[in-house]
């Protein structure tokens, strides 16, 4: 069907109908590419019979094609053959030439088999807009190109759409929101010849323009709020998203827009904003699954950057040449890896860091300044300085205690006594009790597991406790996040106040301290080597006295994601708190003072200070303040950015794309078939970006204006906007495409000006009614004999409803929000054990009514209402969304609380603003939604429906109340409930109308 369609398409769109001269690009290449190039194309490894048909030389060298001589051309004879061994394409390929295609090939060979370079790779040629008969139709240079084509086909353009339709169309197109009645009335009453242009300029200046323009760019850039892959934990990238909105609003020229996103960090003295922009190429997924091989994913991330950059700027499917030379287009595997060399030098890790906070998990990360936090931080820092000063002051006092403390350090070591566990309770963690120790094992999952064990000490007082772990067999990694001890005395349970100690312990205090905090979520890995013990020591603030020893102790250890098995036990000591020091200190104390080095003397002094009760308070404060500063640091919004490593990684061609099969080494270079990068450009991302936007580049401008065209007309001039290669479709209006591309460059890559040009063309302003005769001939509107009409996107549909209801909170930017969402989805699909969001926690208040672009985007579980309307998952670059109609969309529009609440508030506006009679209210609502008055028939349908539903709610007032209870925000209590309910159902009908769901 597809091939049939493209054939229909090319018959329709090319000169073939007119039996004019055949064009290789338009008529021949699509046939050859689809049917022959796979085996007789660019990729030498795949080439059969050493024959290539993608060049004149190849095709004519051995008589496959003899220009002008059909019967001498072996290729032609093979095409005609009915021998299954001979015929081309071979039956095995499932390809078959139609008789129309054969006819085109026949005429082409007879006419001399002229080849042309692929249209997308030749320089952009600015044609003079053609002359047309309907000379007063064109409104700007776009129109003659379109009209000339229509006149060739003998089709007349459609009349201009009504002002109402046009204003709704262009307002939705430029801002993603419907026009307000005030805007509509102002436009209708403006009879000046430039009224429409003025409206367009107003819309281009709206801050909502940037939000709407950002949407396709976010799809292209695979922007999301989570990392993707299995764990799919949150990430922080919204500052990049806000950068995009601002860039569109400020009308940043597209060349600058390109340079900053690909290489902002490499500009001289890059600004904060330029560095944030580079997040474009950090938007790819990052894998945090346990057990992955980092090299595999480093290769994956860099490949994603290559493929995304090639798709967005070059319109090329580079994913094909990751494993082999391209089958259809002149790109080699070397080209792929030479491009990769530009993107392979980020100081990043292959495996994500699950233990880190979402805003710091994947360096390089840029922290953004927040004045509020800055001032808090400086207060804390000065507190810290003061504390340290007072500590210093205490220490500077003569301390007679020091020498007597040394004198008293008599013992050799701290005597520890083992406490036997009597019972153990596990919370998700496999455990068993063995010889008074707890053996606990592997828990690869990522949840916060724990075990609690009970012991009953027999001696006292207890001044310190230590937790000792040793691997049971193989090496193990135990990721600990919690430790606490509770004294149980009859019914009374008292958590003991513990302080991490600095002696006989395996981890620094700074690391142990957080384990004592309730709710700590940052596990620390303890790497336990086979045959070695690791211990954590805690002092008791108040020793547990002997008399309390009817007490039992419950010791809880929390963990996450372990490998291997570990045996845990606890020990206690009664050592005088002043003598809780490490063995090395005991040894040092014995050494005569004159024999101690300065360093040793300092070690002794530090150990002494750690035992001083008078420093205890201040040390705790210092630790607490330090932690507050660290926590504050994590509150700064952050965005992942690109940076270059001091010495770049080597890049190799990967054999068949396998990360562990490096072949030949390559260096940064642009694809060989395209104009070379000037020598003076740096061989880095900056040079690459400058090369992409150099005026000679044949692709960037074409690809970009084509996507802009697609945004407004639903389909690009090149329909395959993601593929400008041989397998893509040739442009329907090649001269127009080139003219627009050259105009884009000429105006300094001015995006707003290009958008303005498109939406002020007569072509855009046509009505979108499908004249039945043309409809069947050009169902996809490729000839542009009418205006665009298609269903609004998921985002625009919701935004429209919020705007019409008056609920919309139009604030721009900021962290993602979590509007209404069906229950139970995360619970069913999210991992039971990974440290990732397992429940969707819906926001309340304003966050429910923000524009949909700010909705939290979880890659594994995107918002179901969005998925229903065909949004991508944002796992990889998407340049076109498929449009489709499904019953799930209907269910969503009818039953989602989002639309029910919007209907309720639209109804409320109809009641409070629309007038006092039912008809006035219905007319008002209809006009708000569709920017036009209802016809008498439409009004009659609505009126009858209202009367019927009102009667129904009068019979069932509870039903009315139930309907009005949908959604968080209460309705105006002064309004009649049954009227409001009936009108709410009508508002819902208005919001579900095909005309409302469509741009008309």
């Amino acid at each position: 069907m597809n091939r049939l369609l493209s054939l229909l398409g090319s018959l329709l769109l090319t000169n073939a109908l007119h039996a004019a001269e055949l064009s290789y690009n338009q008529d021949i290449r699509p046939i050859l590419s689809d049917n022959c190039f796979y085996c007789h194309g660019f990729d030498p490894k795949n080439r059969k019979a050493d024959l290539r048909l993608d060049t004149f030389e190849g095709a004519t060298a051995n008589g496959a094609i003899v220009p002008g001589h059909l019967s001498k051309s072996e290729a032609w004879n093979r095409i005609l053959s009915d021998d299954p061994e001979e015929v081309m394409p071979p039956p095995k390929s499932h390809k078959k030439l139609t008789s129309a295609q054969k006819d085109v090939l026949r005429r082409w060979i007879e006419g001399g088999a002229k080849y042309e370079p692929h249209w997308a790779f030749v320089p952009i040629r600015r044609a003079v807009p053609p002359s047309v008969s309907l000379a007063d139709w064109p409104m700007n240079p776009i129109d003659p190109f379109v009209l000339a084509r229509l006149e060739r086909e003998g089709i007349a353009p459609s009349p201009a759409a009504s002002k109402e339709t046009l204003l709704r169309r262009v307002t939705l197109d430029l801002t993603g929101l419907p026009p307000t009645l005030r805007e509509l009335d102002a436009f209708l009453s403006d009879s000046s010849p430039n009224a429409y242009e003025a409206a367009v300029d107003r819309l281009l200046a709206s801050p909502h323009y940037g939000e709407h323009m950002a949407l396709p760019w976010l799809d292209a850039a695979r922007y999301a709020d989570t990392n993707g892959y299995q764990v799919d934990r949150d990430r922080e990238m919204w500052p990049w998203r806000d950068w995009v909105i601002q860039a569109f609003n400020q009308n940043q020229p597209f060349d600058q827009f390109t340079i900053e996103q690909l290489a902002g960090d490499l500009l001289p003295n890059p600004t904060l904003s330029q560095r944030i922009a580079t997040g474009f190429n950090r938007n790819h997924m990052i894998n945090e699954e346990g057990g992955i091989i980092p090299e595999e994913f480093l290769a994956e991330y860099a490949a994603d950057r290559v493929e995304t950059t090639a798709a967005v700027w070059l319109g090329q499917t580079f994913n094909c040449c990751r494993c082999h030379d391209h089958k259809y287009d002149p790109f080699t595997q070397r080209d792929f890896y030479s491009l990769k060399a530009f993107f392979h030098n980020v100081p990043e890790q292959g495996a994500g860091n699950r233990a880190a906070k979402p805003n710091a998990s994947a360096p390089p990360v840029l922290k953004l300044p927040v004045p509020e936090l800055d001032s808090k931080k400086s207060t804390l820092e000065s507190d810290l300085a003061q504390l340290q000063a007072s500590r210093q002051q205490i220490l500077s006092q003569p301390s007679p205690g020091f020498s007597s403390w040394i004198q008293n350090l008599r013992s050799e070591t701290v005597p520890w006594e083992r406490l036997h566990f009597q019972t153990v309770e596990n919370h998700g963690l496999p455990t068993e009790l063995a010889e008074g120790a707890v053996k606990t094992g592997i828990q690869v999952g990522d949840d916060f597991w724990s075990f609690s064990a009970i012991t009953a000490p027999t001696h006292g007082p207890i001044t310190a406790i230590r937790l000792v772990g040793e691997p049971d067999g193989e090496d193990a990694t135990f990721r600990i996040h919690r430790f606490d001890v509770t004294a149980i005395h009859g019914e009374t349970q008292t958590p003991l106040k513990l302080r991490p100690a600095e002696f006989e312990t395996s981890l620094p205090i700074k690391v142990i301290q957080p384990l004592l905090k309730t709710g700590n979520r940052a596990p620390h890995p303890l790497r336990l080597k086979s045959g070695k013990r690791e211990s954590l020591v805690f002092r008791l603030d108040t020793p547990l006295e002997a008399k309390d020893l009817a007490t039992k102790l419950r010791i809880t250890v929390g963990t996450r994601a372990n490998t291997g098995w570990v045996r845990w036990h606890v020990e206690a000591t009664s050592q005088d708190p002043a003598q809780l020091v490490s063995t090395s200190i005991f040894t040092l104390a014995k050494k005569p003072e004159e024999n101690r080095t300065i360093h040793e003397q300092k070690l002794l002094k530090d150990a002494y200070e750690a035992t001083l009760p008078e420093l205890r308070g201040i040390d705790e404060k210092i630790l607490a303040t330090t932690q507050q500063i660290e926590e504050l640091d994590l509150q700064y919004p952050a965005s992942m950015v690109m940076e270059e490593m001091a010495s770049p990684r080597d890049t190799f061609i990967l054999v068949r794309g396998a990360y562990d099969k490096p072949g030949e080494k390559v260096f940064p270079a642009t694809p060989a078939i395209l104009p070379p990068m000037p020598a003076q450009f740096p061989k880095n991302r900056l040079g690459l970006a400058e090369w992409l936007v150099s005026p000679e580049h044949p692709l960037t401008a074409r690809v970009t204006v084509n996507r802009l065209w697609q945004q407004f007309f639903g389909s690009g001039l090149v329909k395959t906007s993601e593929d400008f290669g041989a397998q893509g479709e040739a442009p329907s209006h090649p001269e127009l495409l080139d003219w627009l591309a050259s105009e884009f460059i000429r105006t300094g890559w001015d995006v707003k000006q290009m958008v303005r040009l498109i939406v002020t063309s007569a072509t855009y302003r046509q009505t979108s009614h499908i004249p039945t005769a043309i409809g069947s001939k050009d169902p996809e509107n490729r000839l542009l004999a009418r205006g665009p009409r298609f269903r609004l996107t998921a985002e625009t549909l919701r935004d429209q409803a919020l705007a019409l209801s008056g609920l919309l909170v139009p604030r721009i930017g900021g962290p993602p929000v979590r509007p209404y969402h069906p229950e139970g989805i995360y619970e069913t699909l999210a991992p039971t054990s990974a440290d990732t969001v397992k429940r969707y926690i819906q926001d309340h208040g304003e966050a429910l009514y923000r524009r949909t672009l700010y909705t939290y985007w979880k890659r594994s579980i995107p918002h179901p209402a969005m998925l229903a309307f065909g949004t991508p998952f944002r796992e990889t670059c998407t340049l076109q969304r498929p449009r489709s109609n499904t019953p799930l969309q209907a269910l969503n529009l009818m039953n989602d609380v989002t639309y029910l609440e919007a209907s309720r508030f639209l109804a409320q506006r109809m009641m409070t603003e629309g007038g006092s009679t039912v008809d006035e209210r219905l007319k008002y609502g209809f006009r708000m939604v569709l920017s036009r008055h209802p016809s008498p028939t439409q009004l009659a349908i609505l009126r009858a429906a209202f009367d019927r539903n009102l009667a129904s709610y009068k019979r069932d007032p509870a039903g009315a109340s139930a309907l009005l209870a949908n959604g968080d925000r209460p309705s105006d209590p002064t309004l009649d409930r049954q009227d409001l309910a009936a009108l709410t159902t009508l508002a819902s009908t208005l919001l579900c109308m095909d005309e409302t769901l469509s741009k008309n």
Partner: protein
Amino acid sequence: MNRVDRKTFLIRATHGLGGIALATLLQPHARAVPPSRETRGLHFPPKAKRILWLTQSGAPSQLDLFDPKPALSPLFNQDLPPSVRGEQRLTGMTAGQKRFPIAPSLFRFSPHGQCGMSLSELLPHTAKWADELCLIRSMHTEAINHDPAMTLLQTGHQIGGRPSFGAWVSYGLGSENDNLPTFVALVSTPSGNVNSQPLHERMWGAGFLPARHQGVRFTPTKDPVLYLNNPPGISRTLRRHQLDDLAKLNALTLSEYHDPETRNRIDQFEMAFRMQAAVPELADLSNEPARTFDAYGPESRKPGTYAANCLMARRLAERGVRFIQLYHRGWDQHGNLPRDIRSQCYDTDQPTAALLAELKERGLLEDTLVIWGGEFGRTTYSQGTLTQDNYGRDHHPRCFSIWMAGAGIQKGHVHGETDDFSYNIVRDPVHIHDLNATALHLLGIEHTRLTHRFQGRDYRLTDVHGEIVKGVLA
């Protein structure tokens, strides 16, 4: 829809495929298309009308369920010979292990049925159906981590973005039921306290195919399909009236714009209305007799369990749903395998057997292809400490087992063989692509011809691979 409209619709709404996707293309009017029409354009006479895929997410251990290796017992705690291990890459979870001690299965295998298929004592109920099963012991894949492996199993490619199997089938064959989705997914959470891998919505996604081919997930909540129920305050009568109003208004739009999409939209709202009736009827198990629940086991009375979903799967199959995919999570047994696999088998064994029995009883097994399996296998050596009664197993892509039953499948048959360690395949390897090619073949589709043009390339479920596994066909 008049002739012109339908033709326009065909061209506009699809990027179809040669000849066979007619039913899908005409889906909004599937009622008008007799079922025989669907099969007319198929590449082969179909054996199966539908697929029921019982996906065991997390990767069940072939060594403890399907692939007996009695010769391993004396090798308890001995190192797996490096020559067996070869160059197989290991996950980061066991790559650091100094030893790879062989962990023979704790579970006894014995022959079952006429065919004498050897199955583990963990599967007493499934084992009764041995004579209906075709067990493939020689499955293999490339991926070693869950997400890429599941994505490959579902879409034929490790990286997300391609349509899942069910979406391809919806695209290729369309629906047999006008009131229910073509492709339904049901996800269950295990009853035991085991580690459950996440599932992404894209597992049943349509990829680059139109969204209407995406799997629709049925949940045990008050809305079995998202947004299914009318909200409080909107009765079914009121909804019917509203849809009539909407149809009238949209008909006016259609006569004004002549846009076939408007017609399509009217149809989709109508189908939504029909679903509102059909789905609750489907999900309502209150008329199922007690013996049915007894057959599926105690868990079947709890909504959302694998057992309840198996019962639901039978109801879906009865109603002509084309592709039914169950997902049961919790098979990722890196440690405590003996305990956790028992719990998983408690969840799945009896319900699976009951489902086979019910399909058979109703004659549905004749034209339903049932597939049971996970995304890869598990290692013969223990992850972590090996004891006499406890061990764990890491991910293993080189061999694993799945079984098929039903339409067109050779019954009571074992296909393929692994080495003495269940580490390498020694006979008849079957890649996931081969499995998919075979399943499509049974549906009457030549896998190389079910294609969709995207980004300049004709994509298909089997990528550029796939051989039909003749040995499993009846």
